[in-house]
C-alpha cells in the first residue's frame, strides 16, 4: 500500500467506522417518530462515535510522520479513484474536536430546537460524518465529495432553523463556498492529469513546473481562503454565524473554518511548495489585515454573535499567519490555534446560545448585567472570553505564542502588527465581558444554567486550562508530522 500509509493496527476499519457511525445514526433517526427518542439516539450516536474516535488517540503512533490507520479500497478504477483513508498529526485532534462537538451540539439544541427535531438531528449527524470524512480522506475526489457534501446539511441548518435573516445568510454561505470549490475541482483534475491518480500523498512534493504550481495554488487558495475565511473573502461568515442556530454556529466556527487552514497545510504547502513560498508574503499581508480589521470591527459590534464571528476572522488570521510564516513554530502554532479556536469559539457560541434561549436576544445590552443573576454562567463565559484573547494560562496563549515566535523569525513587521491585533482582542473581549457581567443593574427573572448546560461546557473548560497549562502532550503528538513537513519544505527555499 504505498510507503505513505501505515495500515490500520486494529482489527476493524476504525476511520470508516468513525465516519459512518453518525450517518448510520442519522438513517436510524429517520425511522423514529418521538422527538425525545430522536434526541436520545442522536446524542448516543455522538457519544459512541466520540468513544470510538478516542481509540485513535490511544493507538496513535506519535513517532512517525506517515499516515496511520490506513484503509484502502478500489472505488472507481476507470479513473483511478480510490477510497483511501488515513490520519496524521495534523488531523488527529481535528477529528477528535469534531467528534466531541457533535454530541455537544445535540445537547445544546435539546430545548432550543422545537420544530422538526428529527430533521435537525439528521443534519447534525450527516454534518459530523462529512466533517470527519474531510479530515480522513486521502483521495482528492473522496475529499472533495465530503467537502461539498458538508454544504448541504449546513445550508439546511441555517436555512430552516436560522434567525430572521436566514434566507440571505444561507444562500450567501452556499454560493460563496461553492464558488471556491469549483476551482478546487479544476485544480484536482489538473493534478490528476499530471500524476495519473487522485491520491493525495502521491501528489505531494513532486517536480511540478512553477507555472503549474502557481495556478494550482491559486485555485486551492481561493477555496480555502473562503472557508477560513481570509480577508477579503470573509463577508459570508458574520451573516452565516449570526443567523445559524447555536449548533450550526458551533460547527461553523469550530470545524468548518478549520478546513480552510487544514487545506493550506495538507494541500497548498506539500503539493505546491514553490508557489506557497512565492505567495507567502501576500498571504501574510492578508492575515495581518484580517487580524487588525477583525479586531476593529469587533470593537463596534452590539450583537454578541456577530462580535464572536468577527473575532473568528481575527483568530483565523493568526492561524494563516502561522502557516505562511513557513516556520516550524508557525506551523505548530497554527495547528494549536486551529484546535484552540475550535474549542474556545465553539464554547463562546454555546454560551451565547444559552443566554439567547433565556432572553431571545443576541444584543449585548439585552444580555448585560448577568453577573448577579447567572453567576455560574458568567464564570464559564469569563473563562472562555479571557481564553479568547489569549490570556496566559489559557489555551489560546500557547498557540498565539508559537505563531508570534514563528512570525518574528522571518517577518518582524507582520509580527508587530499581529501583536497589535492581540491587544485589540483583549480590548473588545474585555469590553464585552464587562458589559455582560456589570452592564446593567436591574434584576430580571433569568434562571442560571442547568445541569445539561454545565455538562457540555465542562469538557471545553477543562481543555482550555489543560492546553493552557500543560500543552506538551498535544505538541508531542503533532510534532513529527510538522517537523517532517518543515524539513520537506526547506528544500524549496531559495
Amino acid at each position, binding site marked *: 500500500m504505498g510507503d505513505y500509509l501505515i495500515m490500520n493496527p486494529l482489527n476493524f476499519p476504525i476511520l470508516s467506522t468513525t465516519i459512518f457511525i453518525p450517518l448510520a445514526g442519522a438513517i436510524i433517526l429517520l425511522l423514529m417518530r418521538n422527538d425525545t427518542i430522536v434526541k436520545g439516539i442522536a446524542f448516543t450516536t455522538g457519544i459512541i462515535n466520540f468513544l470510538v474516535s478516542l481509540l485513535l488517540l490511544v493507538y496513535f503512533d506519535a513517532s512517525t510522520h506517515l499516515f496511520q490507520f490506513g484503509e484502502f479500497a478500489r472505488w*472507481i478504477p476507470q479513473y483511478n479513484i480510490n477510497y483511501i483513508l488515513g490520519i496524521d498529526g495534523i488531523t488527529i485532534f481535528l477529528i477528535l474536536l469534531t467528534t466531541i462537538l457533535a454530541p455537544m451540539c445535540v445537547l445544546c439544541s435539546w430545548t432550543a430546537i422545537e420544530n422538526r427535531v428529527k430533521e435537525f438531528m439528521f443534519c447534525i449527524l450527516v454534518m459530523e460524518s462529512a466533517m470527519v470524512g474531510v479530515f480522513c480522506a486521502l483521495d482528492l*475526489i473522496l475529499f472533495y*465529495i465530503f467537502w461539498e*457534501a458538508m454544504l*448541504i446539511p449546513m445550508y439546511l441548518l441555517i436555512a430552516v432553523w436560522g434567525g430572521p435573516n436566514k434566507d440571505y445568510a*444561507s444562500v450567501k454561505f452556499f454560493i460563496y463556498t461553492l464558488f471556491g470549490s*469549483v476551482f478546487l475541482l479544476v485544480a484536482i*483534475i489538473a493534478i*490528476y492529469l499530471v500524476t495519473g491518480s487522485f491520491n493525495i500523498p502521491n501528489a505531494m512534493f513532486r517536480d511540478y513546473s512553477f507555472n503549474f504550481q502557481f495556478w494550482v495554488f491559486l485555485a486551492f487558495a481561493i477555496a480555502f481562503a473562503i472557508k477560513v475565511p481570509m480577508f477579503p473573502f470573509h463577508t459570508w461568515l458574520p451573516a452565516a454565524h449570526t443567523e445559524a442556530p447555536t449548533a450550526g454556529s458551533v460547527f461553523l466556527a469550530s470545524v468548518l473554518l478549520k478546513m480552510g487552514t487544514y487545506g493550506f497545510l495538507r494541500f497548498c504547502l506539500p503539493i505546491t511548495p514553490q508557489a506557497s513560498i512565492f505567495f507567502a508574503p501576500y498571504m501574510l499581508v492578508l492575515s495581518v489585515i484580517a487580524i487588525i480589521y477583525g479586531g476593529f470591527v469587533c470593537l463596534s459590534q452590539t450583537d454578541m454573535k456577530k462580535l464572536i464571528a468577527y473575532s473568528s476572522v481575527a483568530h483565523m488570521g493568526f492561524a494563516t499567519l502561522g502557516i505562511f510564516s513557513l516556520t516550524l513554530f508557525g506551523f505548530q502554532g497554527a495547528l494549536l490555534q486551529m484546535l484552540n479556536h475550535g474549542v474556545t469559539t465553539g464554547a463562546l457560541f454555546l454560551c451565547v446560545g444559552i443566554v439567547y434561549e433565556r432572553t431571545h436576544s443576541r444584543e449585548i445590552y439585552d444580555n448585560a448585567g448577568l453577573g448577579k443573576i447567572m453567576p455560574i454562567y458568567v464564570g464559564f463565559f469569563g473563562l472562555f472570553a479571557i481564553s479568547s484573547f489569549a490570556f496566559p494560562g489559557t489555551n489560546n496563549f500557547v498557540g498565539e505564542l508559537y505563531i508570534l515566535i514563528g512570525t518574528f523569525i522571518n517577518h518582524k513587521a507582520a509580527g508587530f502588527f499581529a501583536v497589535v491585533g492581540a491587544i485589540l482582542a483583549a480590548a473588545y473581549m474585555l469590553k464585552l465581558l464587562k458589559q455582560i457581567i456589570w452592564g446593567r443593574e436591574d434584576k430580571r427573572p433569568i434562571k442560571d444554567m442547568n445541569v445539561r448546560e454545565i455538562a457540555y461546557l465542562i469538557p471545553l473548560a477543562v481543555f482550555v486550562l489543560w492546553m493552557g497549562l500543560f500543552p506538551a502532550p498535544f505538541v508531542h503528538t503533532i510534532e513529527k508530522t510538522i517537523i517532517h513537513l518543515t524539513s520537506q519544505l526547506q528544500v524549496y527555499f531559495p
Partner: protein
Amino acid sequence: MTILPELYMLFFSIVFLFLSVGKRKADLFTWAKVLSLVGLVITLVSINGRGNLFYGAYRVDLFSQIFKAVFAYGFVFVIFMLGRKNEIEEGYLAEYFMFLGFSTLGLMMLVSSVELISIAISLEISSYSLYVIVPLRKGQTKVQLEASMKYLFFGAISSGIMLYGMSYLYGMIQSTFLSKIIFVLPKFLDQPIGILAIILTLAGFFFKLSLFPFHFWAPDIYEGASNTTTTFIATVPKVAAAALLIRIVTMASSADPAFVTILIVLAALSMTFGNIVGLVQKDIKRLLGYSGIAHAGYLIMGILAMSRDGNAAAIYYMVVYLFMNLGVFYVVLLLAKSGENITLNDLSGLARRAPLLAFTLAVSAFSLAGIPPTGGFTGKLFLFTSAFKAGYLNIVIIGAVNTVISIFYYLNLVRMSYSKEAIVAEPINLSVHEKALCYVLIFLVLYLGIMPFGLTQLFRMAV
C-alpha cells in the same frame, strides 16, 4: 430476435391504437403501466443482442441496446408518473399512450441507425408523435397551441436543415452509410463544404438537444405542453439525440480542429446562455427548459474530447440527466393538482407540506447543479476530466464558472421549499406508489453519484 425491443414498442402502440377505438377507458392506466414494465424487461433482456440488419443500415450493438434500455426506463417512469388523471383529456388518453409509444419506438430506432435515411426516418417517427401530443392538454389555451405550433415549425425547419446537410454529405461522399462517411469526410473537412455539411446535419440533433442556437423552442414548449409531455420531451429525446452524436463521434477517428472549435463555442454559449437566462425564470418548467439548454452544453464537453473516456462520460451524464430531471419533474407533476404550471412561489413551504417531495426536489436540484454526492457531480467530474485530458482547459473553466452561476437558480428551488413559509399550508398526501417512485428516484440519483464504477465500465465497453 435482435430487434425485439422495437417490435415490442410497436406492439405497445398498436395495442393502444385499438384501445383508443374502443369504449373502455377505465383501466388504461393499469394497461399502460403493466405493458411498459414488460417492455422494460424485454429491453433489459435483449441488452446482449448483436447484429447488422437491413444491409448494414441498422446496427444492434451494446451501445444501441444500452440506450434502448435507458429509453425504456424513461418511458416507464413517465407512464408511472402520469398516475393522476389531471393532465390529459380522458378521451385522448389512449392516443396519448400510443403516441408516447411511437415516439419511444422512433428513438429506439434512431440509436440503432447507422445510415442517413434511416436516421432521418427514425427521427421523424419520434418527432411527429411528439408534435401530436404537445397540444394534448386539459383545457385548451392559446399558450399550448402556440407551443405546439412552434414545436412543429422549429422541428420541421431543423429537419429540413438536417436533410439539406445530408444531401451535401451524399453529394460529397456518394454514400449514406455513416461508416463510409466518417471514413471519407476528413478529406473534405478542410473545405468549407465539409464543415457546413456536418454542422447542418448535426443541426437536427442539436435541435432535439436544445443546444444553443437551436434552443428557441425549448422554454416555450416546456411551458405550453402538459407536465407529463414536458417530462418526456425534456428527457428521453434528448438522451437519444446525445446518443447519436456520440455514435457519430465514436466512428470518427480523429478530431478536426475547426469542428472541435465550433463545438467548444456552441457548448460555451449554450451553458452560459442557458444558465444566465435560467436565473430570472419564475415558471419551473421554463426554468428547467433553460437548465436543459445549459446541460446540452455540458454534454458537448464530453463529446468534443473525442475520446473513449469522453464518450463514456457523455453517456453517463445523459443517464444521470434523465433521472435527475425526472426527479424535478415528478415533484412538479405531483404539486400540480389540476395539471397547471408550477411557479417558484408554489414551492414555498413544500418542506412542511410534503417533506418527501421537498427532499426529492432538493436531491435532484443539487444533482442538476453538480453537488456531490449526487450523480450530477460524478457525471460532471467525468466530463470535466475528459475535456481537460483532451487539452480543452478553457471549456472546463467555463463549465466550472457556469456551475456557480447555475447554483443560484437550482438553490432557489431548494430555498423556496425549505426556508419560505407556505402560503397554503395544507399538507400534500402522497399515495404509496407515489412515495415509492420518489424513493426510487432519490436512490437512483444518489447511486449514480456514489457507485458509478459498474455503469462506467459498461459504457466504456459500449463506445
